[in-house]
């Protein structure tokens, strides 16, 4: 496909993605206060919210998609900022499942597997550690959502919860058309709301998947040049910036971090080269939720999207900029990789427990 046509397709897909987010918001609003209350109470415990964030992201294999859905839910009023913040943090943990699964592909070669698994789990450990440190602080003092709220007010003003987003107007037509379609097919009330939510979810997931695929094709040569530029260099802020830029371009941190795994397995990138790239991907992936917030009508949705960005930046300031803290995820990943090489089944157990069993138990017990 010619570059111009592909670029136009990406623009159209982003528009479709925004329609999906708006449709999701509209659907929840149609379903009414009862449904919103049920959703609200299901994640009123922050740890349960965190677990829902992990599970949801593991399910769709994309934190961009899950955080966009969370933004849509906040916009509809089904979730408050306080409930959404732990879910956003959970999405950060859940998104690391993709590159960890990719690393399991190297399981038959010990040396390769050790490097690949360490490169994958350093992202896990960083995100888990960031949540372990920042979630309690957030629950007690609200510094992250506070900063996000301040930025949100700076951007859209503090006039109230309604925000007149210009993008909302652009996507209103297709959303109204969807509502009319379900009306004509005889749906009403909660059924119509659920169908709007389902349609919105499908549109968000499909549009994001195709945006990612086409953006990757558009910028593959640029990604290659950027990664070549950091080969053999000792990581640092440049690698972090490369991770961020590449992730913003492809709208998927999973793509960025998964590219690193075969390179780490082959020994082309060291663990310390790959580590900051994954942190940059953490920041880059927050742009999708910010984009989703443009299609939402509530200032809270923008606050939640900005919370995602603020949380990731705070995590890096706390755990990467401080030299002694920087080594913790690296050491943990190296240790985990050594254990996994000795007992391969541990690697599988690690993935199943961290990304499925523990969050399922968390939701079941705490909701």
């Amino acid at each position, binding site marked *: 496909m010619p570059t111009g046509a592909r670029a136009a397709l990406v623009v159209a897909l982003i528009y479709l993605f925004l329609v999906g987010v708006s449709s999701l918001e509209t659907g929840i609003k149609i379903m009414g206060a009862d449904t919103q209350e049920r959703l609200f109470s299901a994640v009123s415990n922050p740890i349960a919210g965190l677990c829902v964030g992990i599970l949801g992201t593991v399910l769709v294999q994309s934190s961009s998609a899950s955080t966009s859905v969370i933004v849509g839910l906040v916009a509809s009023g089904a979730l408050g900022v306080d409930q959404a913040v732990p879910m956003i943090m959970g999405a950060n943990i859940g998104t690391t499942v993709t590159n960890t699964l990719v690393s399991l592909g190297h399981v038959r070669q010990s040396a390769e597997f050790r490097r690949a698994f360490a490169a994958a789990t350093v992202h896990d450990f960083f995100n888990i550690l960031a949540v372990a440190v920042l979630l309690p602080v957030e629950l007690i003092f609200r510094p992250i959502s506070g900063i996000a709220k301040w930025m949100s007010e700076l951007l859209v003003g503090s006039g109230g919860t309604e925000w007149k987003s210009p993008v909302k107007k652009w996507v209103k037509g297709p959303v109204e058309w969807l509502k009319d379609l379900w009306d004509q097919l005889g749906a009403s009330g909660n059924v119509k709301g659920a169908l709007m939510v389902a349609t919105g979810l499908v549109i968000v997931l499909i549009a994001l998947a195709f945006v990612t695929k086409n953006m990757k094709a558009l910028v593959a040569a640029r990604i290659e040049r950027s990664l*070549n530029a950091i080969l053999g260099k000792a990581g640092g802020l440049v690698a972090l910036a490369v991770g961020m830029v590449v992730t913003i371009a492809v709208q998927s941190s999973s793509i960025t971090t998964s590219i690193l795994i075969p*390179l780490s397995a082959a020994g082309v990138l060291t663990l310390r080269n790959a580590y900051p790239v994954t942190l940059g991907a953490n920041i880059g992936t927050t742009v999708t939720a910010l984009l989703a917030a443009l299609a939402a009508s509530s200032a809270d949705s923008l606050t939640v999207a900005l919370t995602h960005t603020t949380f990731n930046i705070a995590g890096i300031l706390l755990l990467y900029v401080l030299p002694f803290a920087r080594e913790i995820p690296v050491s943990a990943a190296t240790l985990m990789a050594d254990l996994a090489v000795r007992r391969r089944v541990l690697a599988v157990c690690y993935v199943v427990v961290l990304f499925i069993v523990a969050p399922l138990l968390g939701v079941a017990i705490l909701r």
Partner: protein
Amino acid sequence: MVLSFFRGGDSGLDHVVTRSVAMVTDARHSFDLACTALMSGADPRLIADDVRETDLRINANEQQLRGELAVHISVHGPNDIGEVIGLILLLKKIERVGDHAKNILDLAESGVSFVNEPDIDGLLEERRIVSGFFTEASEILAEHDGIPQSFRERVDSMTSQIQSRIDGYMTSEQPGHQVVPRAVYHRYLKRIVANLNSAVFAATEPVRVAGNSD
């Protein structure tokens, strides 16, 4: 470095080809210098640093470009796998050419000199032809337009010529101090020609060359 994302430039594989052409030029530089020490009476100690630094540069380039090929496959998937295999082989062949140029320098450093020997004109002519192969190989790699038949024929002819010289030295009744250095030199020369030939083949017909033991 981050700006490399926004800048235009060669695509990954084109960049590797461009750099490999530079590596061939480096290898030729080493070969010419090493032969100068052996055939023109230049002091090997004066050129040793240059040859060794060039060899290190070739080795470093090979390692870096292999990494870039791994990045290419990671980013683009297996669509270009044939070309990537070819380029990996190509880089290895060029690296070996550099090693053999260094071996020729080692020969000169161990006291071998063909200056004022009766067969010097023939040796200089062989060196001139082989040095020309480097230039042709660079052009073939840069143009990426297949291997000209005349190049194949001249490479085959030179390989046969070198082999017959080696065979001759093996059965010669001349003293060892005359025959052995020539046999060793020609052995290196044959490997250089074979590796150059394999390099251009690897770039143009990667899978066929994959089993080649040169």
